[in-house]
Structures are given as C-alpha cells and as structure tokens.
C-alpha cells in the first residue's frame, strides 16, 4: 500500500533566519491517521500548509518534496511543481484543511452556509439544493443542533466552538482524499470533540480518507492516530506507529511530553472550606439573551438565551472553572463578568476589589469606576488572533494595558513586556513581530502575557491553554498557579480540558445550554458526578493511553438532548429542573 501524501525533507524558513521547519519528512496512507504532535511553535502548521502551498508570503520553502498519489491509478503528482491552476483542483477537492484559528479563517461578511457550500460549488457538479442538503447534513454530523440557523448565521454570531465546527464541516463536506486538521478540536468541549473525532473516523472508514491530525492533546492522539510524528523546534524528534510511541517513547523529548500530560487524578484530597466565603466576583441571576435580527424580512427574530440565570462566585485567591458544551454560554458569562457585555436587566454582577470592601455592581459603573475595575480585572481571550490588532507589533500590544493606565515609564513597560514573554515561554526577540507571524499556541501565550501585564487581581481565562502542547501547557499552568498563590490572584477559568480543570480549579461549574447543571469542587465533581452531562464529559475526556478509548455510549447519552436525560434531570422544553444543593459544596440541576 502506497502513501497518499508524502513529505520529504521539508525545510522552511523566514528571511535569513534559521529554518523553522527543518528537514521534516512524513507520509500518510489512505484510511489512516497521522498525528503531528509537538511543541507549540515547532512548525506543525507550516508543514501542513506547505502541502497546500499556502504558506505565508514571507516564508520560503528552502527544500523538500511533496508528492500526492494520483487518483485511480494516475501517476503521482509533485505538488511543488504543479501549476497554480492545477493546484486549485487539488485544494479542497483532494486535500482539504481545517485551520487553527476559526474566527479569522472565516470571512466576516458571508454567511456560514455560503462559505461552506462553496467547496461543493467549486468542485462538485451538483445542484444548489443538493449542496445545501449536503451541507446541512454535515452540520448535523459535526454536532450543530440547529443546522438551519447556523447555515444562515454570520461567523460573529457563533461561539468559538461553533465556528470551529463550521470549519470542520467546510473541510469535510467535499469528502477529500486527505484531510489536514490543524488542531481541529482546540475550542471544543470534550463531548463535542469526541463526536467530531468520531465523525472523522467514520468518514475515514467510509471513504478511506487519510488524515493528518495536528494536535497538542495526547489523549486525542491515543484515540485517533495510527502513526505519530513528534516535532520539536522544527525538527522531527521521533516518528512511528502510534502504539509504539505512546507506550514506549524512545526520544527524550517524547518522554518529557508524555510525562507532562495532565490527567484527572485518581483521588484528590478533600479540602477544607471556610463557611464565610470572600467572593471577589459574584454573579447573581445573570442572564443574557441575544436577539438575532432575522436575515430576511419575513423570518421572525430568533431569540438566543445564551446564559440563563447563572449564580456563582469567584473566591478571592481561588479558581472557579467553568466547563461545558460548546455554545453553552461560557464566553458570554466571562464577558459579562468583565463588564464587556451588558447582562439582561435583573442580573447583578458584584465585584469586591478588596476583602470586605463595598461590592460594586458592574452593570452600573461610572467611567472612573470602570477604569479602576478594568485595571484589576483582565481577560485571556479564547480567540487570541482576532483580539490582537493585526497592525500592532507585539511590543505595542503588550504594553498597551500599561499605557492605558499610565503605569511605569516606557522603559519599564518594555522590560515588563519582555519579562512576561519569558514567563509564558516566548523569546523577547518576538516583541518586534506582528501577531500574524506567530503560531497558534504562541499567540495564545501572547494573550496570557498581555493579561498579566498590569498585575491584575482578577483574571478571566477563556480557554487559555487550548492550543498549547502539553509541556508548554504545564509550564503555563504552573505559572498561573504560582502567581495565584503569590499574588492572591483569582481566576475565572474556562476550559474544555477536564484534566486541566481538575488540576487548577477550586470550584467547577458545568454549563449546558446557558445553565449551570452541576457545580462543586473538582474532587467531588470528578469522582462523584451526579449529572448525566457531567458524566458524559468525564467519559469523553480522552486519555493518552491507547488502551482506554473513549466510551462513546456514555458520551452520546449525556451529551444528547436534555429531553433525553433520565427523569430527574430532564428538561421540559425551556423549563429546567432547579439547581439543588446535594452536598456541602455540591449543586446539581435535578428534581429531588
């Protein structure tokens, strides 16, 4: 059996600097999955992009050969020397790619459906209606509950995970021979991730599709990959069949990587909790309803209850983690917690800067109050690329918060920026770059660095480590923990990765459909999950052990429609059971 796609001795560099991809070779066979894992910034994305010949303008391909096997016995094609015209026939039709940053990768001015079905329009000779039905079918398979709505939505109306799923649908709807998936599930909660991975597997089985999967998640690798390529600093460290590498890593870097993989610990010692809690931020009955103005004059307005009556607080010096399904309102909650979105009337969000100080309601802050608050509270954004001004050097982007609040001299600011970069594991030399010249994980770290610049007391982290490889993730988590303990920082931490949550959180809220369905400390939640959805989440958490595949049964049961849950938890249309205290610190949304 011959390889479908072969990459040989690929070397890519920028300007006259040392190559960032150095002598990389790999190949993938039909129906198989190749996982590219490795350090953030090690050149995974660039290697994948070179297969489609869509490298950044500044990148030079210094050497290498990429061959695509011909279809139906036709001779192999050398992708490097193919004419641009013919290349268009390859892209999207034979090889398609899921990009790492879903928000920026979608055109802001076109409806999702339009953008997705375009692949079919370009390569398949089928009617418009047919196209639409195929796209809708694909949307359902990537886990959209309301495919029609998504079809007519604009990217900015969707949550991060939804955009990413749209991208996945776009890449797969044309049923390519080779799918290059660059961190396809970073923004997805584990249940959706499991679903998507399942989908990829299905398609692979059906059509013999080859998959190149770039991921930071060894759990995903364990579940998906047939073979693995481990990269570090532009070089391939180790490559070979998945079982061998996962079970018996030979190279030092691979071993380090395996060691750094977080896991939900077997048992967490119960911690003592004070009764009288000091909340730095408290959300009371917070709701947010988006009204989608109908796309056309006839359709009624769509009301999206993004967040429905959330009640929780972030303790000073502690971490509240929010996990939940994609689109369940996590980001919206986070943005309301920072006053960036106005909550519906009746909600109150109280912030207490100092212990015992008067709480201020973010809903009705004056200008000065807001400024003072903004200095204390910062956010690490879910989608770092779009939150960085493309025309600002990293240097300026990092010092901007200090600039705004007039902290320090300009020298101080630069020094601090350099230091922050080092904290998050980046080189200070990157300060003069523009945001586009970073890898996905590097940008995420920039976002963290920026949030730390002012030394905030309250930090909202929206999927701060989703794009980081496990070793860097470990480093960043370590950093976050350190400063939390040192400076008594408090976090509202949103993540899809339960292992990370288990590690860092003091309290965890599980969200589904804009509602908190279960809340409790990790030790309780992960070892005694009550709610079917929580159970599903845990079951869907992939583990870097090739012998422990995800149990899709539990996943599909818990992640299914709330109306299909067991009696006690079942939602009746919009009516949900009340959130009931079941343990000392444990709340579950159920009828008792």
């Amino acid at each position: 059996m011959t390889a479908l796609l072969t990459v040989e001795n690929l070397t890519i560099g920028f300007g006259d600097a040392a190559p960032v991809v150095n002598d990389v070779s790999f190949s993938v066979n039909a129906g198989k999955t190749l996982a590219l894992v490795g350090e953030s910034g090690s050149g995974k994305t660039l290697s994948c992009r070179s297969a489609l010949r869509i490298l950044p303008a500044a990148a030079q391909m210094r050497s290498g050969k990429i061959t695509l096997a011909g279809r139906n016995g036709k001779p192999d094609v050398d992708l490097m020397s193919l004419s641009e015209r013919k290349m268009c026939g390859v892209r999207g039709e034979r090889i398609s790619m899921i990009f790492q940053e879903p928000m920026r990768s979608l055109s802001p001015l076109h409806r999702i459906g339009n953008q997705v079905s375009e692949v079919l329009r370009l390569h398949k000779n089928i009617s418009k209606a047919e196209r639409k039905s195929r796209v809708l079918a694909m949307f359902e398979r990537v886990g959209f509950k309301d495919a029609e709505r998504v079809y007519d939505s604009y990217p900015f109306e969707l949550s991060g995970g939804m955009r990413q799923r749209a991208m996945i649908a776009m890449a797969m709807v044309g049923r390519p021979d080779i799918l290059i998936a660059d961190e396809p599930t970073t923004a997805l909660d584990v249940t959706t991730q499991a679903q998507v991975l399942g989908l990829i597997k299905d398609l692979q089985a059906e059509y013999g599709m080859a998959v190149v999967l770039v991921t930071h998640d060894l759990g995903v690798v364990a579940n998906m990959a047939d073979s693995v390529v481990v990269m570090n600093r532009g070089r391939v460290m180790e490559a070979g069949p998945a079982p061998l590498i996962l079970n018996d890593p030979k190279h030092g870097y691979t071993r380090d990587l395996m060691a750094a993989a977080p896991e939900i610990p077997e048992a967490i010692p119960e911690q003592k909790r004070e009764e009288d809690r000091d909340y730095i931020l408290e959300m009371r009955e917070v709701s947010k309803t988006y009204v989608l103005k109908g796309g056309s004059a006839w359709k009624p307005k769509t009301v999206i209850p993004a967040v429905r009556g959330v009640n929780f607080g972030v303790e000073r010096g502690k971490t509240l983690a929010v996990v939940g399904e994609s689109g369940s309102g996590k980001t919206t909650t986070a943005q309301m917690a920072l006053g960036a979105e106005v909550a519906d009337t009746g909600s109150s969000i109280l912030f207490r800067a100092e212990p015992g100080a008067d709480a201020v309601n973010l809903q009705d802050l004056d200008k000065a109050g807001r400024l003072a608050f903004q200095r204390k509270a910062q956010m690490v954004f879910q989608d770092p690329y779009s939150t960085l001004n493309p025309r600002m050097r990293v240097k300026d982007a990092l010092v901007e918060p200090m600039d705004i609040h007039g902290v320090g001299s300009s020298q101080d600011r630069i020094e601090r920026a350099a230091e922050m970069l080092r904290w998050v594991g980046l080189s200070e030399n990157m300060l003069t770059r523009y945001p586009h010249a970073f890898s996905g994980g590097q940008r995420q770290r920039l976002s963290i660095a920026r949030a730390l610049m002012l030394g905030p007391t309250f930090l909202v982290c929206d999927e701060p480590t989703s794009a980081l490889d496990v070793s860097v993730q470990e480093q960043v988590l370590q950093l976050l923990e350190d400063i939390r303990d040192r400076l008594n920082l408090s976090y509202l931490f949103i993540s899809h990765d339960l292992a990370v949550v288990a590690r860092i959180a003091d309290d965890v809220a599980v969200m589904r459909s804009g509602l908190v369905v279960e809340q409790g400390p990790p030790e309780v939640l992960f070892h005694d999950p009550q709610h079917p959805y929580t159970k599903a989440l845990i079951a869907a958490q992939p583990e870097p052990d090739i012998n422990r595949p995800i149990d899709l049964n539990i996943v599909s049961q818990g992640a299914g429609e709330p109306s299909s849950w067991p009696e006690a938890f079942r939602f009746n249309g919009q009516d949900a059971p009340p959130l009931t205290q079941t343990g000392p610190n444990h709340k579950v949304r159920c009828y008792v």
Partner: protein
Amino acid sequence: MTILPDGRFVDDAPYETDTGAEARHAELDMSNTRLLWLRFKQHRLGLISALFLLISYLSLPFAGFISPYTPNERLEDYLYAPPQLVRLFHDGKLVGPYVYGTTAEMDLETFSWKYVPDTSTPMKLKFFCEGSDYKLSGFIPSNTHLFCAPEGATVFLLGADRLGRDVFSRILYGAQLSLTVGLVGITVSFVIGIILGSIAGYFGGFLDWIINRVIEILRSLPELPLWLALSAAVPSHWGPVAVFFIISIILGILDWPGLARAVRSKFLSLREEEFVRAAEMMGAKPSRVISKHLLPNFLSHLIASATLSIPAMILGETALSFLGLGLRAPAVSWGVMLNDAQNLASIEIYWWTAIPMLPIVIVVLAFNFFGDGLRDALDPNRS
C-alpha cells in the same frame, strides 16, 4: 538519525530542553519609527520618491537661485522661444556647457515665431553669475544665480512662453505655490474628515446621526454658486496668493464629507472587531481606540486618498479660474501655467508651454510611490 528496528524514526541530535535564553536582537530597542524606516528603505521606488520629494521641498526656497530668470521677467525679443539644448562639444572639441544664440523671425505665412540658431559661435553659460534680483526663501535679497545665459544669448531650458518668460524658471517658482498651498487644503479636509468620520463611526448613535446629517447637507450644498459669491466678496486689494490660500482652506472645508463617510463606514465594521473589544475591555479611551486600533487599519485607504487629492489640489485652481477665482499673475503656479496653455497652439505649435504637466505628473507619482512605500512598510503581512 536512527531508524529503530520497529520502523520508528528517532532523531539522534542531542536533545536538551529549551532554556529560552536567546541573544537579544538589536531591533528590539529601536523605536517604532526606526523600524518603520528600516522596512520603508526596502521599497526602492518609495525611497527614491521620498528622496525626490525631500529634495524638491528643500529646494523650494532656493528656486530663485537655481532658476536663471525670475518668473515674470519678460524677454521681449524671445516670445515663444523653443527649448534650447545645452551642449558640451563644439566641432568635436569640449568647450563646456554652452548654447547657441538665436534670433527671432516673424513668419507671416504661418503666423508663428521662428527661431534660427547661430551655430557658428558657441556661447558658454555663466555660473554663479549675477542676474536679476530675487529674494532667497522669500526674504534674503540676492541676485546670484546658479547659471545664467551668456551675454547676447538666452538659456531657455524648457522654452519661453507667449510673453517671453522662461518656462523652466516659472516651473521652479510655480512649485513654491503648487507644492505648498494646495496641501493646506488637503490637511484641513483630512483633519476634519478623519475626526468627524471616526466619531460618527465609532460612537454611532446620536453623534453618528448628527454628523451624517451635517455631511448630507454639506454635500448637497452646491459649490459652484459658493465660488461665484466668493469671487464677488473677496476684498479687491487681496493679493492672488491670499485669495488662493483662503480658497484652498475653503476647498478643504468643503471636501471632508467624502472622506468622513468612508472613515465612518469602515469604522462601523472595524469597531465590531474583537481586538477593538479587547482594547475597550482593557479600559482604552475612545480616542485611543480610534487612533491606535481603528485608524491604522484604515491607513492604506487614507494614504491612497491623500495621494489622490494632491493632483486635485494642485489643479483645483485651474477649474476655479473658469469662475474668476483662480490664481492670477503675477503669482506663478503650475496651474496658472497650464491655464495659459489651454489652447490648441500650445499643444500643436508651442508644445513646450504645456510642459508644466510633467512636474505635476512626476510629483504626483512620487507622492504615490512614497505613499505606497509607506503603506508597504506599515503592512504587517508583507513579505
């Protein structure tokens, strides 16, 4: 590299964990302008253009020195004299820069002037010589010229016009007005346009409504009658330059709505970008968001627009002169010169009187390439 027996590939270069210690780049401590300059330098055409513009502007005060004649100096025996060649060799011998003397003949067949050069005697140009009086940079009286015509001959590098004035000298003097006053109008219009457009686009709501109405009204107001009224209202003892100056400013004041609309509409969509929201969440004030985040993302358009307004401003006066408002003699500008050239004879017979088109095109192209270089240097994505 090693291929293990189980088919695995393992890199055998020594592996060590990243220390993160890397030599600090020199670039890091440079200011943004410096960095910009470094990138700008790579745009060859832009660099050349910038140098050209720089030299042009620097030499404006020295127009009097460089030009052999003063702008309104009429050589009565050389009406419509054609451009003269400055030669170096005579009869195969190097004599240094010289010209031939010419004599005018009235051709009553064609009713045009004929000039017959006397090719027997080369007449050498004089350098750093005394000529007619002028004021260096407008106030230092002087009469030294870089070069002048030899006794008994003329040096019309670009010919002479209907009244026997040297086109070359007039172009140099004309640059003083054409390259400066028009820019005032552009500046005014850009400042107003950007400020109001940003406010409308960024804040939206009521401010947007008000600004939009003002824009609409201003744009619906006719310019033509305004100019006519103005031409009657300007006090008669004002010099032509003062009138022109005022007009440039008014032109600028009337010109901003177009730009403001463009800025507004672009900002309406830019302000929905995530990075704007991020900046706001950091507490950035509107002025900062506008100047640091929104404007730079619209800079290309602004640069292109500015470049494009330049010819319009240089030539604005030619259109106005139809209404009796343009620049007039004794003021010299390129527009004035072209105005004089607006007849068939200037195209077909005395083609050199239409030469002022060239400096305009050159300057405008220079501004264009300069702008493009700037755009390029500011473009984060460029190669």
